[in-house]
């Protein structure tokens, strides 16, 4: 009931603002900024969808890519292979290192601090620097030339800190009583980790992995000089191929297929937004479960 006593009506607020124009000005400023932010988002997404959806023609999904139909099927398949390959490398690495940091390393040990610092450094490095490193190391030094594999290794270093951090947070959220209970029943450390701890941390780990997929799908700069921009279905992991994001970049910068670029942007946007929504769902499940 006391709520009602302290509640301001709009008329009260208006009166208060008239007495205190500076407060009104601050209020306007805040609301205006929020409006600008969300108007920009709505305009961007609306513009791409409205201009792009009418151009989603069947020829854009034709099996054979020609310079006339600029089909994106090969790019979609390449994107899926890239995601699979990169996760195959970064998934176990990221999850295992998070297990080490959370379950084995002593709190505040020097190794742990160094690992954490390097992971933070990695997450701040821009994707073009990853691309440059991939070109120097995987493509040139290891002699893999432009290939899916070189791109996948480059991307797995890029998403490693993300997977590490989210997995570590998920492991931290598992109550110690679970571990103690498992130990008390005679299970070893390994069995406890794999059967008890990882099991209850799955939604959190999944949320991180899905976020990583989103980054891989949207990545361009790290892939141009590692996976290359050839428009083809690669024969194996050692041949070059462009992902959807690169395909989109080539279309947009050539400027010959603007409508098709819009349509490709729609597909890219829908995939990335869907992936992010999925990650949010997984994270929510973690909170509930």
């Amino acid at each position, binding site marked *: 009931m006391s709520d009602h006593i302290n509640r301001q009506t709009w008329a009260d607020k208006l009166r208060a603002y008239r007495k205190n124009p500076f407060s009104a000005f601050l209020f306007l400023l805040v609301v205006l900024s929020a409006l600008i932010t969300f108007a920009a988002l709505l305009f961007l997404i609306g513009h*791409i969808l409205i201009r792009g959806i009418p151009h989603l023609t069947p020829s854009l999904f034709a099996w054979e890519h020609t310079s006339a139909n600029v089909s994106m099927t090969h790019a979609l398949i390449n994107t899926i292979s890239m995601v699979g390959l990169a996760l195959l490398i970064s998934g176990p690495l990221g999850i295992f290192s998070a297990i080490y940091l959370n379950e084995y390393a002593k709190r505040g040990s020097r190794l742990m601090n160094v690992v954490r610092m390097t992971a933070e450094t990695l997450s701040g490095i821009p994707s073009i620097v990853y691309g440059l490193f991939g070109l120097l190391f995987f493509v040139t030094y290891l002699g893999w030339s432009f290939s899916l594999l070189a791109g996948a290794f480059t991307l797995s270093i890029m998403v490693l800190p993300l997977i590490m951090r989210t997995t570590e947070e998920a492991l931290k959220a598992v109550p110690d009583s679970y571990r103690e209970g498992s130990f008390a029943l005679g299970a070893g450390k390994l069995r406890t980790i794999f059967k008890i701890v990882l099991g209850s941390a799955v939604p959190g780990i999944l949320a991180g992995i899905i976020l990583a997929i989103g980054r891989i799908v949207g990545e361009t700069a790290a892939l141009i000089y590692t996976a290359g921009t050839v428009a083809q279905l690669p024969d194996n992991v050692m041949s070059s191929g462009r992902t959807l994001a690169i395909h989109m970049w080539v279309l947009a910068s050539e400027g010959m297929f603007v409508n098709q670029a819009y349509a490709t942007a729609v597909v890219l946007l829908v995939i990335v937004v869907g992936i992010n929504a999925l990650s949010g769902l997984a994270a929510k499940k973690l909170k509930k479960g």
Partner: protein
Amino acid sequence: MATKQLEGFMKYVFMMAALASILAVALICVFLFAGGIPAMIEIGLFDFLLGRQWTPVDTPPSFGILPMVMGSLYVTLGAIVVGVPIGVLTAVFMSHFCPPFLYKVLKPATQLLAGIPSVVYGFFGLVVLVPFVRDHMGLIFGGNGSSIFTASILLGIMILPTIIGVSEAAIRAVPSSYYEGAVALGASHERSVFFAVVPAAKSGILTSVILGIGRAIGETMAVIMVAGNQARMPTGLFRGGRTLTANIVMEMGYAADLHRAALIATGVILFVFILLINLAFTILRRRGRS
């Protein structure tokens, strides 16, 4: 017996995985520096950093990256000017002015803004912002639309989710007694928020700005589509410019020998910028903790 060995073995497997990130950073440093530093020495560090001419295919070639350094700095500064006020004020809105039903929509929306790939931002800039700037600002200020101004606007939008997310968390972490105290002293809601709560969150807000700078300076694909990319000293807000990141992407495809090494050295400079930003971030966070 077998399980005990497995236990020990797996511990080493986990440890090896943890060492992977250290190895990655070490490899990145070694290969970037080994590829770039010889070029800097050959060109001369002074000529490389402060040279105003980037004409890699002329004879004799000239490798001065000052235009690109300035391009990156201007574009980043522009992004901060556009993105920080709007971002911080939006964070204030989200934390203290937003009704709960709206918050449920707006919070995922900011995450959506963070998830949009930079090529899509770049494409949006290319088909919407560039023509807009050309047609509406070009009459007064000149230029063809691809400019530092356009890139600043686009990057300003791109760093919004970083600024909003980190600032909002910082503002929410301020104890509610600050706000309550201010209101109890008779200050209005707006004044309490702006003069009691926000100043208390300033180190968190500064962190968000630093993260935003890191994102803006490293952004490649979006900038390359709207900034014009002319490799000369930027002459005005509405004229084109080239950033360090764009320099690498544009020329790496055909560069050879010293030109290629100079591009790698460009990457080294970018990398050093990022390391400095990370350092600032770490120092700031340590200070925030103590």
